[in-house]
């Protein structure tokens, strides 16, 4: 396992470099945005008195390279400033938002990958027939649906027509307090149901299609023929010879899907008023709340980079060749 730990370390160092570069890119993007992140504070009577402090804290009056380093320092030490839209420190908002987003996406990823792999390998094995064609077309359809569109449809049907699920939000707040104990968990899951099912519906299709294609590729390999020739049961061939190898592209796709689907989260979270990172990002952009926008983008990027590292580690675990 020595090769594995070496690989982990190597990958972590790479990740750190990536985060550094991505943070720099974010800094450049926000430098290019019109307006100064602190201007709104000067205009707001609540914050007017700390305006000079904010300028100093973010080095806004310094030359660009000083500004840049101050920015990097602030990002790495999680000093994100204050969100003027929500009248709260950005870090407080993110401390609540990140777990929510992780819950939504982690849950959705878990469901879509486990379900998708099962369905994909099933239709991969049962070649031909109407079932396969229907599954492919359905998957392709859901795969290409705009998330916000299907989100609206889900809301219309399951909230307005049927009333099964809430219109949005993270949880029910009664008298400023969330529910207690088991009720709270049930309540959160109830709120999660719609956005999560939309995510699963859209992203699972990709997994199904990829799993199927990947399985078909693997099925043509000689070692499958060998395994069958050895007289192994089909079940065993499928489990131990075909599927494990077919997972490899799935894991690769995970890396790409992550950046892509977290991006899509912005809209989905907004539609369902699910107060996650994406929701706050869009609100920040629409309200020119640059501190909040910058921090959420940074956090989203961090999540993507970490996701990638995890995917790579999984890949390495599945395919030992990679570790070399």
């Amino acid at each position: 396992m020595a090769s594995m730990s070496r690989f982990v370390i190597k990958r972590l160092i790479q990740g750190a470099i990536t985060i550094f570069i991505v943070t720099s890119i974010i800094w450049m993007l926000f430098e290019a945005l019109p307006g100064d992140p602190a201007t709104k504070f000067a205009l707001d009577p609540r914050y007017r008195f700390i305006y000079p402090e904010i300028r100093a804290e973010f080095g806004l009056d310094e030359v660009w390279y000083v500004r840049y380093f101050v920015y990097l320092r602030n990002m790495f030490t999680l000093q994100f400033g204050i969100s003027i839209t929500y009248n709260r420190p950005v870090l407080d908002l993110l401390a609540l938002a990140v777990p929510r987003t992780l819950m939504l996406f982690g849950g959705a990823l878990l469901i879509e990958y486990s379900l998708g792999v099962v369905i994909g390998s099933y239709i991969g094995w049962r070649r031909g027939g109407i079932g396969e064609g229907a599954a492919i077309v359905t998957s392709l359809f859901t795969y290409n649906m705009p998330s916000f569109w299907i989100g609206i449809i889900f809301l219309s049907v399951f909230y307005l027509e049927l009333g099964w699920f809430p219109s949005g939000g993270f949880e029910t707040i009664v008298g400023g307090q969330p529910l207690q104990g088991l009720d709270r968990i049930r309540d959160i899951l109830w709120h999660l149901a719609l956005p999560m099912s939309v995510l699963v519906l859209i992203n699972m299709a990709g997994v199904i299609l990829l799993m199927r294609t990947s399985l078909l590729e693997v099925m043509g390999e000689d070692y499958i023929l060998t395994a069958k020739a050895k007289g192994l049961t089909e079940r065993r061939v499928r489990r131990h010879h075909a599927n494990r190898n077919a997972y490899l592209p799935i894991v690769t796709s995970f890396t790409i899907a992550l950046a892509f689907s977290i991006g899509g989260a912005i809209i989905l979270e907004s539609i369902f008023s699910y107060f996650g990172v994406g929701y706050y990002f869009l609100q920040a952009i629409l309200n020119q709340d640059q501190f909040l926008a910058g921090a959420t983008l940074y956090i989203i990027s961090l999540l993507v980079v970490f996701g990638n590292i995890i995917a790579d580690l999984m890949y390495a675990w599945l395919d030992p060749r990679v570790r070399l």
Partner: protein
Amino acid sequence: MAIFAPWLAPYDPHFLAPDEDFFALSRFNVTFGPGTAYYPPVVGPTRPTYTTPGGGIWTIVADRSGVIHMILATEPISNETPIRAGNTSYTIDIHNVRLPSGLLAKPPLSSVAYVVPALSGASTGEYITNGALAFVANSTFLLYDPFSNRTMYAFDLGFVPNWFVEDPLSAGQMYGIPQEFQECIGVVCIKFTYRYFAVGAANRTLVLRVNFRWPQDTTPVSGKVLIDRNVTLDRPALIYDNNNFLREASSGIFFPVNGTQLNVFDLDGIYRKTLNLTFGGSAASLTTPLVPSRALELPVLFASVRSTSTGSGAVLYLNSTNISRGDISVERTFALPSPSMSVDTVTDNAPESGSIRVYVAANIYESGRAVRAKAFRLDGNATIDSILQADLPEPVHDLYYVFEASRLYMLGNSGAIYSATTVSQGGIRSGLVVFSPADAARMYIRLVGGFQGSIYAVSHLGASSVYGLSFEPATGRVGYYQFIGNTLAPLPPGTYPSGNHYWLGTDNIGQDVLSWTIFGARVAFLVGVLAALSAVLVGTLVGLVAGFHGKIVDTLLMRTADIVLVLPGLPVVIILTTVLGQNVLWIVVVIAILAWPGIARVIRAQTLSLRERPFVDAARVSGASNLRIMFLHIAPNILPFTFLYMTLLVAGAILTEAALSFIGLGDAKAISWGQMLNTLNSSGSTTTAWWWLLPPGLAITILSMGFYFVGRAVDEIVNPRLRER
């Protein structure tokens, strides 16, 4: 589909459903039956302006043969007809009308005037009563009470006139109500109102003044000939009685004579001045009747003229400080924007206090024939303002302005009624729409006002209770139109009163969803294909170079690609478009910036394997340069992959553009599917208008799917291994 959109789409992308579809409009018809020669209908309010409820509107249609039809329309309850069963209607045959001489009246009948009841001082309620009819039967002028079949006043003209008019104030067409006056000789006093009528024939023009208040008034009606001249007028006279307010300044009697002159009299019939109509230094002739300002505080007359030398048209503002002193002049001149334009319709102005605004529809001539028209609004300085400028596809011959609805209504020669808004109503509906489709029988339109008994009810009538009327002289059919009803849009799919069929309904401002969906394919294709093409171009180049050169170049390029791959797509697209600008081309660029690395990676891998192939060695041995090997030997082999990834990218680009537009950060001017969903979301009809929600989303999905299928087909060609399985 994108290219053929103009042929496939039932409507233009900027098409708006006509008002009759867009609004819940009430319209009703009453047919009086065919007559021999109907005059344009007259509208008679029981109360000229605003007062207690209970009034109604008389619609009066007179036939030259001697029959007068009157029917009362009252405020409809919900969508009922204003002409309900049991409503009063009268038919007066002048053959049965007895003159004071004991003889019966004879045809031909002149056009009929409705004389509104007067306003009796400070009292209220009295003018709820009906007015009276004035007309000329053969050569006898009659003031007639149709409700009690009583001739109130008769005067023998001694000739059969070919035109007959009433002053607009007596007809209730102005902002005011005729005021009651009292004159005393000693202790004997008489209450009266000024009522003016003018009649004319060849070589004869006569102006009468009558003291009528209302039919039940016990004061005997008497009349007086103010002017009797042996002149032929070019057009019927205008008697502008501005009642009490600024009476001296504005009121007068105007005779258009000699082609280019106005003979001006005061209201006592005393000749004061001859005004020469000039425009551009030469004499000008009237092209329409003179139009008075409807508002009493704006004593202005409008004269549409045409220069006798150059033939170009103009609208003149006539103003006076004191007609009794003869000081009336052309205060302002507005030359029509094009010499081929002519105002052939009656211009109209609105009783908007404090400002002079005149609504003009000028017909545009080509080789002597009116072919099109342009409607616009002139302000007090005689300049076209930017509020209303509408191009009409056909010449118009009638118009009026409904200030309650802020709309100008015009009757085209085809019988179509056009409507143009004169305010931008929250940016929602503006510009020209067809209010009612072409109808050859329709000849006249008129403003009715509210059915509560007023034409120009000010400030208390909602736009939805203002009605108009159209008339078909051949069939005797009167149609009542509600101008602005309740907004119905987004309209569900179906056929609508205008005859238009909206296969997929309309959106909240009346745009056809099917047309938008079809036209939306353009932006989708443009963004999808352009973004994918540029991403593929960059990606292929980078992949080729990296794969072929290896070493430091490879490392640099691939690290860059990795970094871009890690960037969260949509958030970065959002920020970049905010920085660069929200238009379609920048969106394409931004999408391409984020999409190239994926391709670069794949192409690099392909290049790496191709680089080691014997044919590359062969090329190198024969002395081919690196560039030549890269582009002539390796590139052709990776092109199929390039194409494959392009098709897959198109779908992503389409989805990204749609998402951007949906959250309102896309190109707001683009006709795109995302924009459609964005307006849907902001309109608040998301959950009801399924016909508006489903098409754009389905279109996005199906187009993306289509490209995906193309990609799969390419994939099968590129990877022959896939084919057999």
